[in-house]
């Protein structure tokens, strides 16, 4: 990749100089969190576990620092926040607005702009789409150092097209680190802002033909031997938001065969308006409403991916996925996000084994219980 070209040439604040300013997602690992944040490192982790993830790159924390230093914003922040009383909400908001405006107004250096443009061009070529639409989102370096998402603010920008737009939204992601609430939170915790860093991920938008969620445990009964998939046409938000009853598939995790399927009437789906860069609900044509939204081969492939992801993380997972219509079958199923399942994993279950554990004891106690038929 262009890792060498993207190396920081000048020491920033006395830090080592050999860290990349940008890197591809596939170059990220679990250990990359300080460099690319949690989101990007986990995407890299998935790619390296053999899971297909929409391609993309990240502005590293090193790139972030470089930008802040070159634009002189780091000094500005120091002076603004140095004398700030974290309890004074008005002053806090004022400082936040000033910092954010400054970040969003300052261009990247020509060198950094060129580096980002080169990555974006390569990404477009990889996807076979000129000016490929991407998602630009912040990737925090630590769970307890939240960015804007902590304050419930938007730090994900979808359907971004063209290098100028990409650069602008990267800065908007960076600025999300300086919402009033995020500043106050850090101040209260005693974190100093010059140690703070953020990474920004730029990833191909999955132009979903069909999308949905997948659990590597049965969400209804905690059965670990199955993978449960919910799917609908279009983007996954119709499934995640619960606006439609999706198709539901239960796949045997051990053998990967489909053991149960429910095809629902899916009245709406989400699609994109590239002009406004927003997705919106539309009605599914009547004749397609009862059509299975994911074909059997895709179900099997998806379940296989789910199994690999669970194996990699060693625990049941909750996964968002999509089938991309821009890409040919066989290479078009993507994992958008994977996080540990929490409901069943944290539940304390009682063992089914009976005291004594011999087969005879189990048979006897089962006989005494009988089998409920009503």
């Amino acid at each position, binding site marked *: 990749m262009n890792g060498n070209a993207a190396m920081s040439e000048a020491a920033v604040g006395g830090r080592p100089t050999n860290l990349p300013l940008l890197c591809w997602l596939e170059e990220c690992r679990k250990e990359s969190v300080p460099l690319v944040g949690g989101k990007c490192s986990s995407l890299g982790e998935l790619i390296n576990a053999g899971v297909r993830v929409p391609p993309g790159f990240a502005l590293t924390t090193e790139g972030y620092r470089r930008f802040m230093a070159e634009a002189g914003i780091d000094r500005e922040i120091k002076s603004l926040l140095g004398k700030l009383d974290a309890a004074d909400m008005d002053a806090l908001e004022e400082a936040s607005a000033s910092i954010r405006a400054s970040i969003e107004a300052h261009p990247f250096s020509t060198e950094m702009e060129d580096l980002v443009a080169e990555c974006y061009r390569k990404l477009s070529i990889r996807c076979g789409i000129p000016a490929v639409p991407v998602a630009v989102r912040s990737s925090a370096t630590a769970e307890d150092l939240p960015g804007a998402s902590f304050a419930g603010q938007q730090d994900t920008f979808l359907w971004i097209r063209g290098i100028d737009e990409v650069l602008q939204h990267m800065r908007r992601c960076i600025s999300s680190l300086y919402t009033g609430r995020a500043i106050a939170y850090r101040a209260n915790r005693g974190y100093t802002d010059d140690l703070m860093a953020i990474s920004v991920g730029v990833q191909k938008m999955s132009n979903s033909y069909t999308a949905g969620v997948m659990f590597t445990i*049965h969400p209804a*009964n905690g*059965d*670990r*031997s*199955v993978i449960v998939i919910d799917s609908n046409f279009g983007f996954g938000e119709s499934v995640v938001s619960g606006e439609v009853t999706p198709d539901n598939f*239960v796949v*045997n*995790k*051990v*053998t990967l*065969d*489909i*053991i*149960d*399927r429910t095809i629902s009437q899916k009245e709406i789906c989400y699609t994109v308006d590239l002009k406004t860069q927003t997705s919106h609900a539309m009605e599914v044509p009547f004749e397609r409403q009862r059509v299975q939204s994911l074909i*059997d081969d895709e179900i099997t492939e998806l379940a296989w991916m789910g199994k690999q992801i669970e194996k990699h993380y060693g625990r049941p997972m909750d996964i968002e996925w999509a089938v991309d219509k821009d890409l040919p079958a066989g290479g078009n199923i993507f994992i958008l996000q994977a996080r540990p399942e929490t409901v069943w994993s944290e539940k304390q*279950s009682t*063992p*089914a*084994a*009976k005291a004594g*554990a*011999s*087969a*005879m004891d*189990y*048979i*006897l106690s*089962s*006989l*005494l*219980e*009988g*089998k*409920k*038929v*009503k």
Partner: protein
Amino acid sequence: MKFPNPHDVKAKTIPGTEGWERMYPYQYQFVTDDPERNQYEKDTFWFNDGLHYPEPLYPFDTIWDEAWFLALSQFNNRIFMVPPVRGVDHRMINGYVYISPVPVKDGAEIGSRVPHFMERAGYYYKNWDALEAKWKVKMEATIRELEAVKIPALQDMEDLQVVTDAVGESQGYHLLKNYDDLINLGIKCWQYHFEFLNLGYAAYVFFLDFMQKQFPSMPTQRVTQMISGIDVIMYRPDEELKKLAKKAIELGVDATVCSSQQWTVVEAALKKLPKGQEWLAALEQAREPWFNVSTGTGWFHHDRSWNDQMDVPLSGINTYIGKLKQGVSIERPTEKVRAERDRITAEYRDLIEKDEDRKQFDELLGCAKTVFPYVENHLFYVEHWFHSVFWNKMREVGAIMKQHGMIEDVEDIWLLRRDEIKSALWDVVTAWATGVTPRGTKVWPKEILWRKGVMQKFKEWSPPPAIGTAPEVIQEPFTIVLWGVTNKSLGDWSAVQDVKDPDTITELKGFAGSPGIVEGRARVCKTVAEVGQLQEGEILVAPTTSPSWAPAFAKIKACVTDVGGVMSHAAIVCREYGLPAVVGTGHSTKIIKSGMMLRVDGSSGVITIVR
């Protein structure tokens, strides 16, 4: 769930069958003249044993129902003292058998049975292999005894030897006695049938139960897959056909063996060739005992064995010769099956979260593997080998009755109860001894004609799947594993009552017997004799299958049956061959027609009629 009152069902007598009750034992009737029994019958849940009896029982064939009524119940209730359950009670409506497990209701009594059960059942589980070896010896001795029973013809003058040897007994006496011996051997054979079976099923059903507690969505077939690939003698008859196919090619007589579908023609042609005689000698060796395999389940007189219908094994041998000539392997992919079994077992084991559950899993799987061979092998000894010999001995009795004018055809004997046959034989031998005409010659042919009409009407009647009052729990292991009585099946059964027009059905559900999805043309084979019509790559649709159907599985793409669970023959064989199977669908052979395009999903248990 509401089910009809049994007495209401029985009260609607099919016109022209009035008095049918006399064809069956009196204790099998639902009654109205005994208030206490009547109340018990109303409060009890009875389900139709369609698994064993898809058709109404002939009066004589009721023998095996009575035999297992006794044997199953005694082992549960008087020998092993299964704590919460006594035996299984039986009734009959219009020739269809209804059964009901009888619970022990008193908690204290259940408690007092526990130590006895632990001691007695524990003894069998602990010494399973040694006791099973003894069982084989007992069973083979019983079959030898049966084979030795002579049904003597009644001669006008007894042999001189009777005098010179001072025998002191006539053929008439021997006919009566040997008929009794025949019946008694049958009952004894069924005593042995249940010596291990309930314990075997218990080990199996609670292993299943344990796995489905761990993994509520786990298909039953995946549990049974964990005990697949164990050698059982059920495959032996089929293996013999494969050996004979190879031998025919080796000896260069394969063209002759394949020259006709009729055994008599092939046999005559082979006898003319020296190598043909060598092959016939090998066949003779295989026939005893392996061709005593029934073409049905063996439960009915009309289930004939390969030995009775040599065209059936011949067709199997021809199929295998054809495959071998094309260079196609005819071996069961046993190594593959075992590798997949081990992979699946290990993966499920790893998915178990708690150490104590993993230990329990190991124990229960070990126990299920120990009992599995018996659960399969007893079928060959009892239902196939013993029964095939038994039915033919009974035909010898029928021949004597025909000879003396009591019945018009040998096969008419099945329309009489076994105690009526005993009475009729008394009539025959006393008349023979005395030199007069038996009274029965004017009684039985008329009665048999009427009974044939009744049987026809019974066949056209559809028994409700369940009647009476549904219970809250069922503890009898048979009821659970064999008939699959669960909340779901009860729901399905009450739904079946509402099916109106069979032509509108495009989807059928059954048990997922063996995984995989295929599409193909249906071939409905009501009996094994129709298996010859099967074309390569068709989907077999059958009432049920048995080991004698084995060669069919080398041709087909998938299998669908009316009757049977995931441990039924069709399901087990399909898993061994890697073919999808949906079993226990209820009415597939009635709804599906040959030539229909089907989609069989053996993973979810659904059959779709595509067109």
